[in-house]
């Protein structure tokens, strides 16, 4: 509706305008233009006629022609200018087109850059959020770490306090033990003195009574001293016999592996060997043969040394597992294990009263153990690994890696004396009277030291004798007239103490270095054990 109405007035207006133009313009356009042209012409004619009337026609004509020329020139100039302007216009158009193209290119680049910027901004935002997350996680970890640090320091403090308490308690306990040990010592002494007094009394009583001489000797503990003398003579004879006429009695494989230690029991019937197979084997010498009696187990590493107590009922073995063990011989049961060393135990010996044990170890200490309480009573720092130990009533002698033999007073726990040798001390042995000490050292020399004068009495060596290891054991004969030792080449060397010369060399039957030798208390047998797991029994035939 509106359109049609719009159309009406619009059409009306258009019609009206057209009509107006027709009337006002078109009717007069042509006429007016013709009129104006005529006017011009007439003006021109007027000018010309005026000039003709004035008589200055020629000049006027010249003027006219000049004017015409001038006009023509102006006209040509104007044409030229027009041409130039047209040229300018064309050039400008071209430039505009170039500029337009450039603009388009720039706009394309701009849009490209904008998209790039958008993507980069997106990435940037993502990285920012990622960074924030990482920072948060980092912060959390830091907090956790701080908390853990605090707990840690608290726990450290607690540990320190508990270790202090522990040390305090241990020291108190040791003090208590020492007190108890002192009490025991005092008791022992009292006991000893009582027994001595009793013995004296009985001896006195016995001396009063006349006794009939009996051909059959009765061995009884009361006649201990007589017995010893008698046995000594017996042994002396026997050992002299053995030395002059000893020969192989038997040999056999004793252990699986190296055999390190051998010992005859005081009763002379049993002997024990110990080796790297962790076992102590007991043998009985029957008519020149070694019959295996049994094996003592319980050690966790190889056996380094063996000793029987003076009664022959307990056997003490030191082992590489840092402990010494005691078995009862009759039933082969393990009685005690003495732990406490921090290195291999190289030698362990009963003290003369059989209630204490001294052990020397690779950890450079000697420990004194009480058998009743089965704890270590004293520890002395020797300064060097102890290879062998022997004991007298007051004194403990230990031979060390640093070529020294140290003499310790048991009560005072201190070194009384030190002897220096030329080589590492590998073995110690006491003579029967306990006046002489036999040492074997790595410089292949055996020395006898007089304990009363502390001088070297004899030195034994032989061209083929080489000390094979740090634990090569040598020993006296029961009558102290001979000394026997095993060499690295497998030979058993026997020296005569009185002459100082090599008496016998038994070099067959051993194929590897000899670790230890032992002379039976009766003097009839010598047993040597070697690295190659063999044990050879020598006897006089």
């Amino acid at each position: 509706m509106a359109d049609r109405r719009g159309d009406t007035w619009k059409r009306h207006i258009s019609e009206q305008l057209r009509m107006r133009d027709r009337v006002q313009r078109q009717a007069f356009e042509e006429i007016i233009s013709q009129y104006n042209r005529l006017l011009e012409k007439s003006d021109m004619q007027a000018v010309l006629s005026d000039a003709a009337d004035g008589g200055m026609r020629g000049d006027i004509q010249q003027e006219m022609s000049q004017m015409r020329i001038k006009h023509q020139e102006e006209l040509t100039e104007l044409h030229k200018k027009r041409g130039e302007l047209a040229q300018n216009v064309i050039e400008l158009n071209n430039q505009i087109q170039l500029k337009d193209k450039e603009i388009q290119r720039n706009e394309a680049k701009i849009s490209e850059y904008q998209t790039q910027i958008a993507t980069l901004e997106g990435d940037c935002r993502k990285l920012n959020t990622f960074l924030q997350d990482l920072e948060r996680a980092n912060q959390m970890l830091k907090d956790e770490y701080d908390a853990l640090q605090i707990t840690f320091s608290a726990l450290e403090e607690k540990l320190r306090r508990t270790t202090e308490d522990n040390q305090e308690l241990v020291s108190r306990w040791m003090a208590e033990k020492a007190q108890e040990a002192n009490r025991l010592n005092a008791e022992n002494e009292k006991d000893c003195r009582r027994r001595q007094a009793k013995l004296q009394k009985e001896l006195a009583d016995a001396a009063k009574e006349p006794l009939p001489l009996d051909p059959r000797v009765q061995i009884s503990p009361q006649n201990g001293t007589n017995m010893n003398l008698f046995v000594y003579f017996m042994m002396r004879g026997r050992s002299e016999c053995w030395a002059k006429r000893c020969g192989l009695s038997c040999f056999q494989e004793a252990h699986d592996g190296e055999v390190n230690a051998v010992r005859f029991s005081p009763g002379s019937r049993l002997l024990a060997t110990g080796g790297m197979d962790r076992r102590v084997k007991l043998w009985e010498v029957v008519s020149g043969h070694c019959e295996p009696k049994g094996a003592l187990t319980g050690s966790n590493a190889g056996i380094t040394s063996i000793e029987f107590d003076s009664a022959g009922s307990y056997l003490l073995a030191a082992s590489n597992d840092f402990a010494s063990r005691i078995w009862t011989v009759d039933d082969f049961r393990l009685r005690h294990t003495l732990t406490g060393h921090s290195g291999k135990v190289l030698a362990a010996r009963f003290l003369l009263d059989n209630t204490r044990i001294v052990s020397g170890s690779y950890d450079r200490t000697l420990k004194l153990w009480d058998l009743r309480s089965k704890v270590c009573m004293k520890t002395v720092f020797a300064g060097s690994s102890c290879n062998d130990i022997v004991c007298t009533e007051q004194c403990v002698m230990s031979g060390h890696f640093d070529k020294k033999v140290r003499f310790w007073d048991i009560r005072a726990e201190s070194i009384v004396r030190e002897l220096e040798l030329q080589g590492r001390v590998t073995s110690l042995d006491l003579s029967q009277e306990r006046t002489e000490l036999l040492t074997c050292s790595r410089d292949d020399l055996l020395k006898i030291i007089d304990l009363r004068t502390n001088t070297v009495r004899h030195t034994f060596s032989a061209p083929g004798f080489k000390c094979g290891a740090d634990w090569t054991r040598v020993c006296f004969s029961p009558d102290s007239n001979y000394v026997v030792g095993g060499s690295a080449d497998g030979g058993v060397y026997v020296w005569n103490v009185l002459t100082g010369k090599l008496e016998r060399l038994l070099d067959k039957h051993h194929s590897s270095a000899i670790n230890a030798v032992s002379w039976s208390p009766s003097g009839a047998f010598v047993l040597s054990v070697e690295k190659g797991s063999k044990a050879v029994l020598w006897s006089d035939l």
Partner: protein
Amino acid sequence: MADDKDVLRDVWFGRIPTCFALYQDEVTEKEAEPFYLLLPRVSYLTLVTDKVKKHFLKAVKPEDVEEMWFEYEGTPLKWHYPIGVLFDLHALNTALPWSITVHFKNFPERDLLHCLSNSVIEAHFMSCIKEADALKHKSQVINDMQKKDHKQLWMGLQNDKFDQFWAMNRKLMEYPTEEGGFRYIPFRIYQTMSDRPFIQKLFRPASPEGHTHTLGDLLKEMYPAAIAHDGDAKKYQVLIQGIEPLLETPLQWLSEHLSHPDNFLHVCILPVPTD
């Protein structure tokens, strides 16, 4: 829209055939013949009468020449009105061509403004445009234009270049779509029978309810006598650009298409001739 473009062209190229005759009492050396010219409706007298001046200067002695002025049947013609308005107001229903008398002496100081150079006409023209835009757009559009754009408007009018003028003028004819039209319509209503030069008031292109105002609504508001009531004979002619548009023509459309180059809608109200 093509029709609208044609309307604009017709308005721009409207011409009035005029005959300029020198005042008889002016002393001349020789007889001054009348000079005929087709005057553009949309321009101003002093802008397009250089040829007239040159023609008549040939006849008049130089010492007698002062500022040239025109009159029609005794009424001095104000040069600052568009030529079309002057014609419609004074000589519409007379025989064509329009006879104007040219004077060189006795300039009527009380009736006419002096116009000594084209820059005066330019200043007047630009001030009319700015006034119109103040009514239409609160002067936003005209103020956003640069100096060269203003110059282009004037040069387009001076050199009679339709495209050059309208390249700039179309900006002044735009309005924001939510408004639906200009803020106020710039118009002037001229009448012969009054002392007032013209009527110019604020008038919206549409009512607050959204009802578009027409030419009739404008006249009802400003000059109710011009509208003929049913039964009565038409007493007045309402002329714009020399034609009488229908009263239901929308005012917004009229302002866009039938305005003069100075952006004003010049309306002439004449009594119907009684011959």
